């Protein structure tokens, strides 16, 4: 719109800068997931439980990550993928809840979430999700997708470097990862699968 302030030249310049990029759905979900992963990483005294809710069933699957040879022996390494879904979310100090709020000096670099590909062969399953200490065992947080009618179930999820316990929720039943090492669940009995995540 041409006004006193905005003559034709400025109008043309502004128009050339006003081109909108498309809202790629995968990118949007990547942003949402990274924001949620970051929330889990640094709850503050006030925001600790706000925003917790069932997520709709959508995830960011990255077919190229499946090729990672590490999956074959059941261990998962962190990788990063491009675009807005890059783990830029996990930055800054991790704040301790309760009565003290003290940021750790260098928690930022080490505690950044990393993209981790997960895979399960379950041809007759109707729904599969990853549950673990990285998503508060919420079966709606990290649903997996299947390519084609009988391919493996996959998802690329965010988790921080370190040791994690997890399992798959297959049609409502908690199932260990056949490709991963197991460990005894000290508190609830039974076994859990172990995931060691490292920075890329």
């Amino acid at each position, binding site marked *: 719109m041409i006004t006193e302030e905005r003559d034709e030249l400025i109008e043309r310049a502004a128009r050339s800068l006003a081109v909108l990029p498309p*809202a790629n759905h995968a990118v*949007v979900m990547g*942003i949402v997931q990274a924001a949620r992963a970051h929330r889990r990483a640094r709850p503050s005294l006030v925001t600790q439980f706000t925003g917790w809710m069932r997520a709709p069933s959508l995830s960011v699957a990255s077919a190229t990550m499946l090729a990672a040879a590490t999956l074959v022996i059941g261990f998962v390494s962190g990788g990063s993928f491009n675009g807005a879904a890059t783990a830029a979310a996990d930055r800054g100090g991790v704040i301790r809840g309760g009565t003290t709020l003290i940021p750790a000096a260098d928690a930022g670099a080490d505690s950044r979430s990393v993209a981790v590909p997960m895979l399960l062969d379950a041809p007759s399953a109707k729904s599969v999700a990853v549950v673990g200490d990285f998503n508060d065992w919420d079966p709606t947080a990290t649903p997996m997708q299947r390519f084609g009618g009988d391919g493996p179930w996959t998802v690329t999820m965010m988790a921080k470097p370190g040791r994690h316990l997890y399992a798959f929720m297959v049609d409502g039943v908690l199932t260990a990862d056949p490709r991963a090492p197991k460990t005894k669940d000290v508190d609830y009995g039974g076994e859990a699968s172990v995931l060691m995540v490292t920075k890329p």
Partner: protein
Amino acid sequence: MNEIDPSIPLRARAGDEKAFIEIVEFYYPRCLRFARNMLGSEQDAEEAVQDAFTRVYDSFPRFREDARFDPWLFRILANRCRTSMARSRRHRSMIEYGEVAALSAAAAPEEEFGADWAEEVRVVLETLPAEQREAFLLRHVEDLSYEDIAAVTGAGLSALRMRVKRACDTLRARLEKVER
């Protein structure tokens, strides 16, 4: 300028994850556009946008019920962009306003007739001091009112008008040469 239905941020604030997704879907294109224009780097822009939405997600409890979402979001995004520029190793040297005249005189013989307009605009944009670029983009590309821009940047109205004016003057001076 399109603003999101005000009930959606309120729902997101109350914990509705679907509402947060709607917010990202609605604002992502504009946020990325602003960040790209501000930072001049696709990678930096995507990172700044991700950071901004993460902060929005974290900061919802601080979002006042009677506030408008647009300026609040853009304030967070503008801050992320400023942080990114401060941090960036690819930081391009910023040319002060006073030096523009000398620059255009030196560049004139080199400019091609019919140079790509968009590219030329971006080049000039990059030469603007960050504050002017920010004010210009918010005003003429993102279409915010001066009151909203004041809320986003924390600067006074007259200072903002001056920044926009200077940015326009610089753009005119450089771009008129391209136009011929």
